Structures are given as C-alpha cells and as structure tokens.
C-alpha cells in the first residue's frame, strides 16, 4: 500500500483549489492523526480535501511541519463504486445526466429491474433532472458490470449505494437530518433488503426451473442472435448459481425462500407501521429501495407468482408502493 502512495506538499493557508492538485487519488483518511493541534485554517484545508473524496473516511495522511501541511493520499481504494466520482464532485448537478439500463419491456430481468427502479426512484425523490436511456448492452457498459449506472458529466457511477454517495457529494441527500440511530436503522433495513429480497429475487429468477426457462433466460438473451442468446443466458445462470451457492442460498427450498421473504416483509411492515414513509413524512434512501423491490415484485407477472401473494398480505406495504408511485412516477 505504501508503495503506491504519493506525497503532496501544499503551502499552508492556501487551500487546494483545482481538482488537479488531488489527481486520481482515493483512500482512507486517518481520523486519529489530525484531531490534535490543528488550526482552523488547517482544518478547513482538510475539509476541502475531504469534500473532494467521495467516501469521507478515506486514506489521507496528514503531517504538519513548520509552515507546510503535507498530506499523503494512498492510491488504493478506487473502489468500484468510487470510480471517477471523486474529483470535481462539488460541481453542480449537470443537466445531461443519463441513467443507463436495459430495455424494460423485453429485456430486463427481475433482479436487475428492482435495482434500476430503486435508483430511478431515489433520483426522483431527490428531485434531480435525469433521463433514462435504455441500451441492450447496459450491463457490459457498466463499470462494475451491474446495472444501472448513471453518467453525470465525465463520471460513471453504478449501483445503488455508490449513486447515493455520489449524489450526496453534490449536496443532495435524503437522510441528512436523521439522527444517528435512525440512520443506522435505515442502513440495517437496506442491508436486509439486499440480503433477503435481493437474493430471493435472484433465486426465483434464475434457479426456479420454470421461471428461468420460460421468462428469465429468454428475456436475458432476447437481444442476441442464435446461438448467443442461449450461451449468454446459460453463462449468466451459472454465475448466479455460483453466487447463490457461495452465500448458501442455492441449497434452500422454495418454501424456505418464501419464508425468508415473508420474514423480511413482516419486518418492513412493522417498521413502516401507519407512517407515510419509513422515517416520517419525507422519503429516505430506504423508501427508494423498498419501492424498487416491492413494486417490481408486485407488478411482474411470473409463472407461479411466487412472492406477490406474500407481499399482498401486508396491506400497508402495497399502499406504500401505490403512494410512492403516484407521488414520484405520475408523469
């Protein structure tokens, strides 16, 4: 790690202004090193620097000498989701933001659809301008290999969490005014959605023999000529099976999966209760994610209709979906 590091020296009292000063660097900002003995100016420099990196705790090492503040940025984290989103993130939200995904009517598969809808709902809840662009090769274009991704100026950001982080850097956030406890609960419920509903959707779409044969695989391969259509669908199915085997989902029976979904919905229903949104009167990231998952599951017609009946048991969740739909997707 140390070998990859760069040492930057910047004269004190002159905050780095241009994005070039920072270059393509990401990392951990070591919290303990900077707390003590910093002047207000130094702190402001550090804050400026940090605002240029998308994930706040990133690798920047500070060192104060006589008149210089040197800091070292470890070029390491470049996490798939951090991408090129760091520099210049303080620029305003551009006009020509595009959300890339596959074609909804013919191509997209259930698990991908939930993710795309969640990101779209999140951007709409933030009130940001963007256009949805459908491409048959959206999955291969995406920097992380997963849909959806947004293109904002020169930056490409894929998947839900990184998009939330990127939008947050631009000054838009749905969870800014929440208490720490609420926010940690929100993150926990979001993890639950990913962990239970996300895996259950993959399981149903790709492992259920009937659904995968009749719906998922034909849809996944629809934009390719024979024989690519079945080769690619088969490869994708193998990848999903490997993934679900790795986290012990493939060995579950349909009943067990349905039971898991039921538990998840029960927890969501309890959390939502009679409120308008999960945390009061305004939406949060969790609302976007829940909407993405449940709305897709409720409206997608699959042979056997596995989860629809489970979700319909919870009246408040179905109403919640309708509410979000009419409030944010009415155009």
């Amino acid at each position, binding site marked *: 790690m140390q070998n990859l590091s760069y040492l930057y020296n910047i004269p004190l009292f002159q905050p780095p202004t241009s994005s070039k000063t920072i270059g393509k660097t990401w990392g951990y900002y070591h*919290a*303990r090193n900077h707390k003590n003995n910093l002047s207000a100016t130094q702190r402001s420099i550090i804050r400026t620097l940090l605002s240029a990196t998308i*994930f706040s*705790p990133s690798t920047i090492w500070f060192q104060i000498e006589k008149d210089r503040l040197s800091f070292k940025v470890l070029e*390491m*984290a*470049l*996490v*798939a*989701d951090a991408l090129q989103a760091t520099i210049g993130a303080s620029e305003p939200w551009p006009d020509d933001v595009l959300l890339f995904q596959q074609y909804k009517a013919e191509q997209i598969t259930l698990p991908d659809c939930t993710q795309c809808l969640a990101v779209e709902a999140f951007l709409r809840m933030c009130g940001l301008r963007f256009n949805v662009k459908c491409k048959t090769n959206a999955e291969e274009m*995406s*920097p*992380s*290999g*997963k849909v959806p991704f947004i293109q904002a100026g020169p930056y490409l950001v894929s998947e839900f969490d990184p998009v939330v982080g990127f939008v947050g850097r631009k000054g838009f956030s749905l969870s800014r005014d929440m208490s*720490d*406890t609420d*926010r*940690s*609960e929100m*993150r*926990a*419920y979001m*993890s*639950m959605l*990913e*962990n*239970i509903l996300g895996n259950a959707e993959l399981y149903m779409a790709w492992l259920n023999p009937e659904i995968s044969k009749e719906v998922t695989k034909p849809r996944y391969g629809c934009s390719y000529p024979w024989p690519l259509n079945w080769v690619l669908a088969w490869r994708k199915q193998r990848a999903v099976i*490997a*993934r679900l*085997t*790795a*986290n*012990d989902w493939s060995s579950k029976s349909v009943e067990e999966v349905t039971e898991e979904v039921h*538990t*998840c919905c*029960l*927890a*969501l229903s*309890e*959390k939502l*209760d009679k409120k308008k949104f999960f945390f009061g009167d305004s939406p949060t990231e969790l609302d976007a994610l829940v909407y993405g998952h449940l709305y897709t599951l409720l409206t997608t017609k699959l042979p056997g209709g596995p989860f629809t009946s489970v979700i319909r048991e919870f009246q408040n969740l179905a109403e919640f979906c309708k509410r979000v739909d009419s409030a944010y997707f009415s155009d």
Partner: protein
Amino acid sequence: MASEKMKLEVWKGDWGLPSVDPHCLAVLAYCKYSGVPVEVIKTGNPWRSPTGNFPVLRHKGEAYCKVTDIFSYLRKEHWGSDFELSTKQSADVVAFSALLEEKLLPALLHLWWMDDKTFLDVTRPWYARAIPFPLSLFLPGRTQKKAELRVNLTKGGESISEMETEAKVYKEAKECLNLLSHKLGEKQYMFGRLPSSLDALVFGYLAPLLKAPLPNNQLHNHLIQCDNLCRVVNDVLVTFFPADLREMEEKKKKEEQKSKNISTDNSEFPNRRRNMILAGFFALSAMAAYAWSSGLIQIQISDIDPAPSPNSRTNNRRGPAGVEAGVGQS
C-alpha cells in the same frame, strides 16, 4: 422427552474466548442468555459434523448446523431470549442480523482466510493444530476456498480488481461497526437491559476481532474506537464466560514462566543445531536426487532413420501396374 440433553459441538476456544468461530460464539452466547441446558462439546474434530464445520446442535436425533436454524429450533423449544421484544424490535433484529451478514461477515472472512499474512500466521496454524491429522491437510484449504468464493462473488465481480474488493469490504465493515455503535448507544444491550439474539450475533462477530492476535488489525483498530461495543463484548465475556478468561490467564502465566525458563536455559540449542544439520542434509540429498533423476529422464529426441528395409519387396511387372510403393517398415 426433555430428559435428553441438547448437545452443542463448537470449535475450541483460544485467546480467552470460549470458541474462535463467530457462529459458534453466537450460539454459545444465545444459549447462555436464554439459559438453555445444553452440553457444550469443545472440539477440533469436524469428522462427525454433517457440513464439516461447527456449530452443530444435536437433539432428538436431529442435527442443526446453521445459526439461524439453531436459533429458530431453540425458539420452537421455548428457549429464547427474544420473547421480551416488541414486534418492532423483532423487526430490528431481522434487519440488523442481515446487516451483520451483509457487511461484517465478508470482512471477517477476508481477514481470517484471504489476508495472506493472517492466514499464514494465525488461521492456518491454529486450525492445523486444532484439527486432527488427515483432516487438517485439506479442511483449512477448503474453508479458505469457500470464503474466497463468498467474498469475491458477492462483493467483487469480473470488472472489479481484488484490491478494490478488499477496500470495499473493509470500508463496509467499518461502516457497519459505526452503525452498530450508534444503535447500541449507551444502552447495556441493543434493546435495553436484556440481551437478544442480535446481541448474541454481535458478540459472536466482534469478540474474535477484539481478542484474537491478528497482524492485520485495521478492523481491530476501528473496533477499539467504538468504546461501547468493546464494553459489551468484555462484559459478556466476564459475565457469561468467566471460565475461559481464567483459563487464558493461567495459560499466560504458564507461558511467561516458560519463556523465563527458556531465556535461562540454553539446553535447547544443540537440538536446534542438529535440526539445522538434518535439514541441510535433507535439502542437499533432495537436490542431488533431483539432479540424478533429471539426468535419467533426459529426453532423447533422436530420429530413427528408417533404413531401407531388407524385405522391401521387388516386383518386376512392367507398365503402369508395375509402379510400386515399397513400404519400408520401421
């Protein structure tokens, strides 16, 4: 019916912990919290386990291996610590359990099995010592493979490098620790004064992180900054597992004594020299054997020229029919 006692097989403990495995610890803690009359067997031999791993709970001829299965079975048998919770709190238990599995577990798997230094210095030696001989050869490797698959397939991808996956996994784990710390606040347990199954899981994940002597300690460093989480783990250890703490202290004393003995005792040196000479001799003979054998297996690429064979037939017929391709047999 109830006369038959439940049997719980878990991995052996070390470093003052009743077990080294997060899942075993979680089950142990859950049993302690709810006072399940369970017979704990600390072992290192997963020969009889259906999955080759622990924990395994055996009762009435059935074996339960997954933590969630064990919890729900105990709950069914009316041994639970979650009955006091409101429905809302139960929902939180589900959510935070998922959070732990989604965000913290990959980092722990990475730390124990995929970080080369930890794996070579701590994990493999520990399991090699704990597991009896023939199994110890391949079980750690198998578990490592499983852990690698889990982390890479759920967190990585073909367009994401290993470094990026690693950074992502640890970042998420640290975030998860922060979230847990916020959730806990100043309370004694997650939901007040009584421990729940969530507390059992949290204890299971955090205790080894806090106590095990791991060389790659960025998560450990982060954890000790979350004071309230450390406090809970230590409290649980002191309250529910005092025996293991005592054991460790005794062991420590013994080791200190031993090290004192060693520092004064030079009698081990001749042995060491002999070992070195033996090792050197072995290496030399192996090299010699290799040289000898490679000289033997020298590949000889010599073309055997098919000499005009003596029995190539002669034929005196004339005309086109007389053309003959004499076949030299070689």
